[in-house]
């Protein structure tokens, strides 16, 4: 039962880390929005899903990468990666801003109860995924290969593939940039002010609508980046791809203490590892069940998250 885990420990660890970084980026979408609104962004999984399609459309249709048997030549590869990453981030970011405008803003202005806002957010998330289901005929969409899954080098039986390495490096850089941004930029400070005390920050002249839009945008950008790395690695997507990943990323955010940016980092990585290890023992078909059990356990036993210190102080 444990033999796979023991035999392939390091290679599992590596793919767990890569998966973990994808979770980190998506869970930032949940965590940032939660920080300012105290509400789960139910549509975050669809925001992610749009990013995966954006990546494929740009690579396959705009850049004409349809061959899909081997890696692209280096200049084209760099162009593809750059454009797809930026395009995916942009599309997801814009979808996120749209979601906030349509599903949240009016209700917030009217000050309705939380239940109404939640239902509205679920509604928009259904609309987005159904929209995609209908135009793709419920079929999965393939992303023709742009990067060969060749091992670059091996350490302790773990083969470092190009896509794995790219995901880990880029995601780590993005995370650091975001963390710095929220800490030191003007907008970042406004976001933190709103997270800590909405009323006080309003008094201090923060434009709440703008800050909330910006938060959705940033969360969307991160989910979009995650979508790119996901598509690069798994090379296909579907209208409901966001569901499982979204639930996992949300779990990661909860493990790290939702609202806590650095928590999302630890949460994402540990969930990625746990998921990969658990799948090697129980079989991949029980993956989402495992994630769900972890979610319930954390919520019930440690509602502030395992890494969550006093939530108020470390919030985004």
């Amino acid at each position, binding site marked *: 039962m444990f033999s796979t885990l023991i035999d392939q420990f390091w290679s599992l660890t590596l793919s767990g880390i890569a998966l973990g970084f994808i979770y980190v980026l998506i869970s930032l979408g949940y965590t940032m929005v939660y920080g300012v609104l105290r509400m789960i962004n139910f549509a975050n999984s669809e925001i992610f899903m749009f990013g995966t399609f954006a990546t494929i459309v740009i690579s396959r249709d705009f850049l004409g990468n349809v061959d899909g048997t081997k890696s692209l030549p280096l200049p084209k590869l760099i162009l593809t990666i750059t454009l797809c990453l930026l395009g995916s981030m942009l599309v997801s970011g814009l979808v996120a801003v749209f979601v906030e405008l349509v599903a949240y803003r009016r209700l917030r202005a009217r000050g309705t109860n939380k239940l109404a806002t*939640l*239902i509205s957010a679920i*509604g928009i998330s*259904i*609309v987005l995924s159904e*929209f995609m289901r209908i135009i793709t005929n419920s079929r999965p969409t393939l992303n023709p290969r742009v990067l060969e899954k060749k091992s670059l080098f091996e350490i302790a039986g773990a083969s470092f593939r190009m896509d794995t390495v790219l995901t880990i490096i880029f995601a780590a850089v993005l995370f650091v940039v975001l963390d710095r941004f929220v800490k030191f930029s003007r907008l970042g400070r406004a976001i933190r002010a709103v997270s800590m005390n909405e009323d006080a920050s309003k008094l201090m002249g923060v434009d709440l609508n703008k800050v909330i839009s910006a938060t959705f945008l940033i969360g969307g950008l991160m989910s979009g980046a995650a979508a790119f790395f996901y598509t690069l690695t798994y090379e296909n997507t579907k209208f409901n791809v966001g569901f499982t990943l979204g639930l996992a990323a949300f779990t990661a955010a909860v493990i790290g203490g939702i609202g806590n940016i650095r928590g999302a980092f630890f949460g994402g990585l540990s969930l990625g590892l746990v998921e990969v290890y658990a799948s090697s023992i129980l079989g991949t*078909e029980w993956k989402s069940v495992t994630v769900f059990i972890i979610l*319930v356990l954390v919520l019930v036993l440690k509602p502030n998250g395992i890494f969550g210190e006093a939530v108020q102080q470390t919030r985004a």
Partner: protein
Amino acid sequence: MKLLNRLREGNLRDWGASFWEQSSPTKRKVIATSLIGFAALAPFMGFGLLDTPVSDYGAVLVYPVGMFILMALGLNIVVGKSGLLDLGYVAFFAIGAYTMAILGTRTSLNTWEIMPIGIALAMLAGLILGLPALRLRGDYLAIVTLGFGEIVRISALNTREIGGPNGIANVPVPPSIGPIKFSLNDQKAFFWVVLIMILLTIWMIRRLSVRRAGRAWEAIRQDEDVAELMGVHTLKYKLWSFSLGAAVGGAAGVLYASKTLFIAPEMFTLNVSILILACVVFGGMGNIWGVVLGAAILAYLPERIRFISDARLLVFGLALVITMNFRPDGLLPRKKREKAIVKSTQDGI
């Protein structure tokens, strides 16, 4: 015209309620009996405007219309009465259906004997989910229930003993009751059973609404902290709400399996939960008649209009967003009115 105005003012429900209150007991009995009789005759009205081009009218009345109304009423106890957002309602429906399918194919029990077992198992599942989940609030509860719904489906999918992805076939139909026979070609009998279950559910909700449990739910929905401080055992009543909702969902599941003959995990996706939620929200959370109306409309329209049936879920999602943004109380909002007598004295001042 007057009706339209009333609808716009959002007090059609109040108007109905005050009409009801001012009627004498005999008048009430007459109205109730004729309404029920009218509903019971619905299977004979499948011609002209009402007929459904896409599918068999008689079958549509049972599923989705009747079943949706039933499940929406059950979910309304949870979402509308107690304000708990349950996105995993399909799980209880699935548990009822699987209970029927497993016991119906492997034992000699019939539908009516399996019904209480299915209900009990669904309630048990409600308790198992509720005990950890109902300690959580608002959006956390929503996401945990959502996960739970998927888990039940995935577990069914991965368990070979209950058919895995292939599901279970040859589920028996209910045995006939006297001259009334249950058959797939003529589903009137199924419709009448659904109708009876709907009436029982309505009776239960109406009864509880004016009792201690109803007040506890209402208090929890409006301000859970204050409810607790006023002595309401919130966890206990939330669990009740959850398991009563589950019971209704389980009952619907048993009947559904016994009607379709064949069930498979793919019938119990998150979409079902969302459809039922949309029925509740669109009709008017917390108001029985609103929920019945909302479910009837949302279940019937896609069958009537082919264009909608392809994009059913999209329409339901839109219904959620639009209702919440522009008419958060739904078609028929919950009680806004105060008793007529007091109004008049107040007007006099």
